[in-house]
């Protein structure tokens, strides 16, 4: 009796948990094929129209919002990753005044509620007189992404043996060459992870964006606004496409990593 309970409990529990996690995603995916009219709540039949004409609805508002999010995400990621990596190296490798204070302050944006950050930033932009547009969104996103980049890259820098850089210098590498050929390649996995994290955070940030975007619409903001009068199926299309793209990237990375591991093991 006991044994059969243990044998069934775990699989049932796991399946339930997975179903619970997957339902919204599957729902979104299925309703991207709904032949909807004004709202996308009831099933009206299967169609590929929404996937094929994703940019034609509402003068391409969905695609406009999506491309805004991509641009903001890309610029904020590059800026935050560059600055964050530099800060991480400085904090781990060098001893300077206010070093621990810097570490602490970098932690604050992660700990502060987004509503407070967003409202505070909006107030500052207003008092300085900066008009709210793409630039203010990018600044806001860069700001909160830096903290996450520093935390991610710091761990990687800390695990990097300083002797490797010393060996590079010892083998006639100038400081620039040592950074380019040794430090940077070895930090790259951490930097890439940080960049992906930044992009994901920026791409689906709503609260801070909503405070600082003015008339500019990002993808999450577009969905929020249209939720009031029914989210168009085109939004489901974009969301599903992003999900599938992410899935393909993750799976192919896993496959190539396991292939490489197999090749190394064979040598």
């Amino acid at each position, binding site marked *: 009796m006991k044994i059969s309970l243990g044998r069934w409990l775990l699989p049932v529990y796991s399946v339930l948990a997975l179903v619970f996690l997957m339902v919204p995603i599957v729902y979104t995916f299925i309703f991207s094929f709904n032949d909807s009219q004004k709202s996308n709540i009831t099933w009206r039949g299967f169609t590929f129209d929404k996937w094929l004409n994703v940019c034609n609805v509402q003068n391409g508002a969905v695609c406009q919002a999506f491309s805004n999010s991509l641009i903001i995400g890309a610029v904020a990621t590059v800026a935050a990753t560059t600055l964050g990596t530099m800060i991480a190296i400085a904090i781990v490798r060098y001893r300077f005044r206010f070093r621990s204070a810097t570490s602490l302050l970098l932690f604050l944006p992660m700990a502060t509620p987004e509503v407070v950050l967003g409202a505070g930033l909006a107030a500052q932009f207003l008092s300085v007189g900066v008009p709210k547009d793409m630039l203010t969104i990018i600044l806001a996103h860069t700001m909160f992404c830096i903290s996450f980049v520093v935390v991610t890259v710091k761990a990687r820098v800390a695990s990097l043996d300083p002797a*490797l850089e*010393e060996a590079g210098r*010892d083998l*006639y590498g*100038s400081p620039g060459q*040592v950074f380019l050929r040794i430090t940077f390649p070895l930090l790259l996995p951490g930097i890439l992870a940080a960049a992906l994290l930044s992009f994901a955070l920026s791409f689906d940030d709503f609260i801070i964006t909503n405070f600082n975007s003015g008339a500019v619409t990002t993808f999450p903001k577009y969905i929020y606004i249209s939720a009031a009068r029914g989210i168009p199926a085109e939004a489901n299309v974009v969301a599903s496409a992003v999900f599938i793209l992410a899935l393909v990237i993750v799976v192919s990375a896993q496959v190539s990593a396991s292939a490489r591991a197999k090749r190394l093991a064979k040598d």
Partner: protein
Amino acid sequence: MSTGAFAAQGADLELVGIQKRFPGFTAIEHLDLKIPAGSFFALLGPSGCGKTTTLRLVAGLEAPTAGRILIGGTDVTDQKSFQRPVNTVFQSYALFPHMTVLENVAFGLRRRRIDEPVAKAHEALRLVELDHLAARKPQQLSGGQQQRVALARAIVNRPALLLLDEPLGALDLKLRRQMQLELKAIQEEVGLTFLHVTHDQEEAMTMADTVAVMNKGRIEQMGAPEELYELPKTAFVANFLGQSNLFTGPVVGSTRDAISVGVAGHNIVVPAARAHRHIGEVTIGIRPEKLSLHLSAPADDAARNTLGPGRVIDVSFSGVSTQYLIDVPHLGNLVVFAQNMGFGPVADEHAEVWVSWAIEHGFGLEDEPGDTPKFESDTTTRSIAAQRRASLVTELEEI
């Protein structure tokens, strides 16, 4: 020198009045050192004695607080690490994990824009017999192989001076012995100047032409291995390099050839030429393997010193030899190494024994008696801990 041609051969290294202070402690007190071109020089000492700091100063990874560093007569004190004609084999090997073995070895050549870096890297790998693994990544190699790659990566640049920072420390005993011989052979083959830092006295003595024993940021004694071993100048050298039985007492008589020291009622004779101090309180010593063990009182012999009777308190058999610990009243414990010429130990525990040795084997130290610290035989954890504590105490006194 930093780019272009190879060094034709090894160069002299000269350290003049080097001092290195870190916040809170002094790693090197005052160091003058000259290493002739083409020699294999070992810097030997316990951890924390300043030997690794010395190496890092020469490599340019640290800057000295005072003093000059000259390589081949050129002052390199103000040169950056990558400008100096020096290469290092790091203790952790520090192989670049993202590069193949071949690219690791070619790294220095490429930075200096030397022609045919790949061909030269292959040649260096052949020298360490690892050319067949050139395409592998360092983490796919064993410890000994990684060590040889690190060596190839350094010598391929033909530096005027090669620095070795305990490069054999991570290898097991058998591999270490093998690598010691290989290193020595490679040094003779390529004719570079090697500066080897180690805490392993056996390693230093096997490999080096000249050994400098370092303690607390100073060089205690420098010379050929045999010279250091047979005629140590200080108690530290006498006990760090092998073991010694040391006795302290006043000089009670002296002739032109020998001095006689009174130790607990015995007169011990030491050749005058082998004693650094000839009057007052002196410390004299004898190596444990020079002692002979007697089961009955030996006949008087003017050529030998005799102590006893004493009691054997410990016998430990180690295959080639047996180590006896003998308690001689008023003298303390004596260590005797005896070759196992027959089967089994000569004397059992609790046996009454006498020891004797040829007068010419004794030595007299330069130290003031009284401040002779009695160290454990060599690099046991306890002795290293004791030395660390001592260095911490001096450190605290400085502050």
